[in-house]
């Protein structure tokens, strides 16, 4: 096997394992699906110093403190509990946005994006991150937590989530996002908090997709080039587990309106919905009401639906 292919295989295997682990964890706690999930210090609480070991460039092998590293400046700290395709896409989207804004016009740091990798085996994690550097394409400093899978105890990170995103300034948390099923549609609301600290307009999903070098696909694929970003954003939003029945109905109505008399968009929607319904963990995605719409679109616009219409 060629080195690059080996790297891809390793990464894909890790993604698959992470996805399976998440599915198992979710399956064990069905009654918690609709409840707010907490991970890490909440808004207003202190960002306590902790240690990580750097992975890339001048930080490689060196211990550093991400909070001290920020030196009171606005910081975006992404704790990666599990690496999945959607979580990778989101991490890239967040850190790319932050990396593009990390320096002011005078070249001084004004935002410090950082990624903290959580692993039971920090040495293996550093080796993995080094091997897959090109594939992962992370543009923020990456450190592996010395405290293992659960990270620093003072943070109370929830090992059941996929990503914990902390935004802070002057040693205090200004926003906290605990993401069980992250997707790139989480990016606008997270980056709105970063933009607030920088005094900028919050980015839209279209802005972020346009800025992404690969159209936001991340490693291992994702959406087809040319897919309507608004359609994709609405569809991804439907997958979040905390929506009310009314919110789901409104999003579904937006999607129906967007694909009406638009064969290309109907095809895209059918493909997105069809792919999702075939997943083993489909019953754990979003809510039952959202899944009803997804199944409906898969039937109406998916391959079988279109073939049925032709017949």
């Amino acid at each position, binding site marked *: 096997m060629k080195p690059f292919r080996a790297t891809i295989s390793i990464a894909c295997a890790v993604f698959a394992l992470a996805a399976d682990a998440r599915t198992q964890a979710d399956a*064990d*706690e069905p*009654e918690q699906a609709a409840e707010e999930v*907490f991970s890490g210090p909440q808004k207003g609480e202190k960002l306590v110093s902790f240690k990580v070991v750097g992975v890339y460039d001048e930080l490689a092998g060196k211990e550093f403190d991400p909070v001290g590293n920020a030196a009171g400046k606005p910081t975006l700290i992404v704790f990666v509990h599990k690496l999945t395709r959607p979580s990778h896409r989101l991490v890239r989207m967040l850190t790319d946005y932050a990396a593009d804004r990390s320096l002011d016009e005078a070249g001084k740091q004004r935002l410090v994006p950082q990624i903290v990798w959580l692993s039971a085996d920090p040495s293996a994690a550093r080796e993995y991150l080094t091997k897959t550097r090109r594939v992962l394409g992370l543009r923020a400093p990456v450190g592996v937590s010395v405290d293992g899978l*659960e990270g620093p*105890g*003072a*943070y*109370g990170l929830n090992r059941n989530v996929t990503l914990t995103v902390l935004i802070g300034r002057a040693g205090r948390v200004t926003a906290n996002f605990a993401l069980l099923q992250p997707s790139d549609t989480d990016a606008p609301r997270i980056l709105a908090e970063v933009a607030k600290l920088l005094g900028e307009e919050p980015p839209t999903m279209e802005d972020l997709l346009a800025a992404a070098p690969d159209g936001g696909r991340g490693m291992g694929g994702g959406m087809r080039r040319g897919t309507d970003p608004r359609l994709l954003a609405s569809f991804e939003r439907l997958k979040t587990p905390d929506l009310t029945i009314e919110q789901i109905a409104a999003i579904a109505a937006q999607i129906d309106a967007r694909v009406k008399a638009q064969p290309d968009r109907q095809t895209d929607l059918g493909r997105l919905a069809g792919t999702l319904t075939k997943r083993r963990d489909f019953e754990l995605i979003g809510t039952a009401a959202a899944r009803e719409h997804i199944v409906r679109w898969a039937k109406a616009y998916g391959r079988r639906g279109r073939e049925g219409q032709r017949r």
Partner: protein
Amino acid sequence: MKAMGRLGAAALLCWLGGSGLAAGGRPGEEPPVTALAFAPDGKELVAGSQAGIEIRAWPDLGVLRRIETSLAHVHDIAFSPDGRWMAVAGGRPAESGGVELRAWPSGELLWTKAAREDLVYSVAWSPDSQSLYCAGHDARVFVRAAESGATVRVLEGHSRPVLAACVTPDGAMVVTAGVDQSLRAWDASTGECLRVLDNHTGTVRDLAMRPDADPDALAMVASVSDDGTVRLWQPTIGRLVRFARLPAAPLAVEWTPDGARLLVTAKNGRLYAIDPDTLEVASAPTAIASWVYSLAVPPGGHAGDHGVAVAGENGQIGALRVPIPTGEDTR
């Protein structure tokens, strides 16, 4: 853990072997002390083991009297908040389990419920002293009316034995935990399981609810587990707030009465004092070489000037002074 200091030998206030034997008796033949609780006035210490129930003076630990019990093993002792009753839990492994309710200070047996087929490990009182939560090896928690002992309801959901139970200061929520590595938060009025807190990766040995110093603060419960951690939770919202990792697996946990420190005993024979906000840890040897099963903190006020009672292997019971701050509540 940020810092770990050691207490000097002066921290040891008093030390005795079990069953009234002074140190140097025959400690190797004594059963471990598995239950410890202070009487409401803080002047007497009640200890439970396979040898029965003993009432000892505090802090000199001299045996004042013994109480006969039908429970072959005593696993927990808890006084009702109004100070009228003492609940005792235990049984005989794989044979029977039960709870006794006794009047205090007389020790008179008011009722006994021994219908379960295995041990009852823990008892916890509701703040109004009207209900008793009895957690056992059969993975169930029986809620009993204190006056009669009648079963009010049964909390079912744990998949393995339940080792600990505690109640929020407002009495609205019950938290239980055990061998299935999870904490479960129950609605005390309906018995509905509200949420499962599953961040531990080992058996959860004990729970302790933070004293209600600030009525506006969310309830906070501490749990200790074989995974070597002490975790702080806000069970009413399902949040793991923070955790400390100890060098040895912890066995028992209590808060100081002012809620400023967590005290934890461990399998390495040490007592740990933990700042719940900074996670700073201090530790002291207990003179028990191995497992320190039981821990009790005298009731009332600040605990800085008091010792605490610890007990464990070979019937040993000790009084220790711990570094507890008496300053302002830092929450």
